[in-house]
């Protein structure tokens, strides 16, 4: 099999998977069409996107950003202010603002990112949270623009009440596809390789000639811009935002949790994490009312993941399947061709691939 043949096989398989994914996304709100179900889908798809966007910086580059709530909130407020200018009855037009908001956030964030990226690991995490609190404070204080503690109302869209949530779902789904697409392009390109190198050993990578500053910045602004896009759609959906919840430290942590749970180094990991945690969170938040219980649940889940599944569900499960497959193959070979028992492959470190 030539390399070219293998690569086109890969591309066809990848394209098929992408098509299947999009088909599933498109069909879901028709399969589960009750209001509360579509609402659940909106949030789950949003979390899947947030976790994937975070993963560009936190997983691929290895920079543990804990303040992504800042970008989410920026997107939310940008949408609130923008949609407010468009006025009531704007319908679908606010959705057109979303790419502008993503781009705008990426540009605005770039200089701040430059400062933050001078630090690493623990210091970086600390500063990213600090930035989030700073932006939250701005939202509280610049009352003329943001409404302060009283919040901002967005125009209510004149969508049909029976299928009110559907446009928002599709907006989120499109964003998710874009995000996954961006992740995939990054992974399979030189940028992905460079980010991997930064994650493993940044100084050595720089020594080898990798443009570490550029690739880090790129990962950061991509991550921030995409996160802001989700925030923008969320704001339009919720129709009323306040600083305390548009800039929610818990939201940052949830995205991190989902990426960790699913597997920071994989493409589908963050989505898996979101699908596993998201509906449960919405369900608990409504049914059991008391927000305290799901704080404890989050914490417990996070600790479990860190101690039992440090690489995440997908890589751990993949490793498990790998070992099972190899054991099966080796048993079969031992049976049929005793002279060709394959060696146990060394499990890939950290499930990287």
């Amino acid at each position, binding site marked *: 099999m030539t390399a070219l043949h293998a*690569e086109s096989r*890969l591309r066809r*398989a*990848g394209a098929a*998977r992408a098509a*299947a*994914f999009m088909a*599933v996304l498109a069909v*879901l709100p028709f399969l*589960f069409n*009750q*209001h*509360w*179900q579509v*609402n*659940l889908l909106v949030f*789950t798809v949003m979390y899947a996107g947030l976790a994937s966007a975070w993963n560009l910086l936190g997983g691929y580059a290895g920079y543990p950003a804990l303040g992504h709530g800042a970008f989410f909130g920026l997107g939310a407020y940008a949408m609130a202010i923008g949609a407010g200018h468009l006025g009531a009855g704007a319908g679908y037009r606010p959705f057109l603002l979303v790419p502008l908001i993503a781009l705008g956030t990426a540009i605005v964030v770039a200089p701040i990112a430059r400062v933050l990226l001078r630090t690493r690991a623990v210091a970086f995490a600390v500063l990213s949270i600090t930035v989030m609190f700073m932006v939250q404070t701005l939202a*509280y*204080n610049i*009352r003329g623009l943001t409404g*302060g*503690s*009283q*919040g901002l*109302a967005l125009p*209510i869209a004149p969508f049909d*009440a029976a299928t*009110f949530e559907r446009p928002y779902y599709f907006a989120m789904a499109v964003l998710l596809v874009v995000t996954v697409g961006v992740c995939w392009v990054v992974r*399979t390109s030189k940028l992905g390789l460079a980010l991997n190198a930064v994650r493993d050993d940044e100084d050595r990578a720089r020594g080898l000639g990798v443009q570490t500053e550029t690739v880090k910045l790129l990962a950061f602004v991509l991550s921030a811009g995409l996160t802001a896009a989700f925030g923008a759609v969320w704001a339009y959906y*919720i*129709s*009323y935002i*306040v600083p*305390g*919840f548009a800039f929610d430290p818990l939201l940052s942590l949830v995205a991190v949790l989902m990426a960790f749970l699913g597997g920071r180094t*994989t*493409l*589908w*990991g963050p*989505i*898996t994490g979101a*699908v*596993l945690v998201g*509906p449960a969170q*919405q*369900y608990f*938040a*409504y*049914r059991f*009312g*008391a*927000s*305290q219980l799901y704080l404890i649940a989050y914490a417990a889940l996070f600790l479990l993941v860190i101690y039992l599944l440090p690489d995440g569900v*997908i890589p751990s499960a*993949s490793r498990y*399947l790998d070992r099972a497959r190899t054991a099966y193959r080796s048993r079969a070979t031992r049976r049929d061709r005793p002279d060709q028992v394959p060696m146990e492959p060394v499990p*890939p470190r950290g*499930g*990287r*691939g």
Partner: protein
Amino acid sequence: MRTMRSTVRRSVWAVPVCLAALAAGACSASPASSQGAGRSSSPLVVGVSMSLSGDLADLAGPAEKGYQLWADTVNAQGGLLGRKVSLKFVDDASNPTQAVTNYENLITADHVDLVFGPFSSLLTIPAASVASRYGYAFIEPSGGAPQVFALHLKNLFLAQPAPILSSADAFADYILSLPVDQRPKTAAYPTADDPFTSAIIARIQQRLQAAGIKTVYSQTYAAETVDLSPVVTRLVSDKPDLIVSGTGGADAVAEVKGMVQAHWTPKFLFFTGGPNDPTFPSQVGAGNVNGIFSSTDWIPQAKTAGNAAFIQAYIAKYGGTAAGIDAAAAEAYACGQLLQLVAQRTGKIDNATIISALHSGTWPTVEGNLTWDAYGSPQGADDVVQWVGGQLLPVYPQSAALASPIALPSWAG
């Protein structure tokens, strides 16, 4: 690239896993469907988003008691049109986003028959639009800020005698009614950033400034602020004659304690919220309450429809004294009374009937005889209340006063 390909292939099964988990989540989370309105012997379910936790929990707590008391009372009398009333409370954690989600779920997932509004203008503003979208009547106990009525919703009705701006006007009227030599010369306006407090403060400030009372300090602080010491430091330093403070409750207590500790008293002290809480004297010290002004929509002494029975039933169910009943309980009770009256007057209890019926006529409740304009703003007026001799009593206007206004005793020393 062999490693990546195998990972890519291996993670294919993630997609069906995702779907399966999603489907499982969706199915397991399916709610119990409730009977639709119309079946005559099924319970009448009223959904309410309550601030059971979060910043507003202290203030909203009595509302839950008020609702429950009303439900018990009306059920003891046979229910509404033969149907027992069942209340469904959901916690919104004082979060407007959660309140919106709650009403969405109550209406579209739980299919409740009716809803009552949440606590505070902050939560009412977004929640009312949701109810309106689905055609539900929105009788609400405590959202009286101008922004609530600016929504121009035909389904909304505030169960209080007047919108909050009326209390602002009442106090401004009182100050301006004083002879010029007794009036304050300077004033300070610290307020929390909240639709309720800032609207009142802004109105009072506008009227008093126009009358020549100088503003020495004006500050809006984030609603979540708990440490009021910088505000107190500033007040003690600027020494205004009058302090008009936009507070929810805890901040009022903090301000009073701060001024007591600094041994300084203004001549006039008005809080939008806090002094009308029955626990206020125990929080600031019983010796420190007299002379403090506030506004309220209900007092135990009011001779309003069903008030005596309400107080009696409340004490029977929850203990305590009449003075210990929070106005929030009365507001909630009044919401229920309105439903009862609609049922009595029209023989029906569906949302469309409620909306059309309440827009005409007068509706007597413990909160007073209520009427509304087209957008739910009540047409009555508020009184100024003051702590006099350990009781919160109306002192202005004279027609409604149960006591004369007193001067604020000094806290110095």
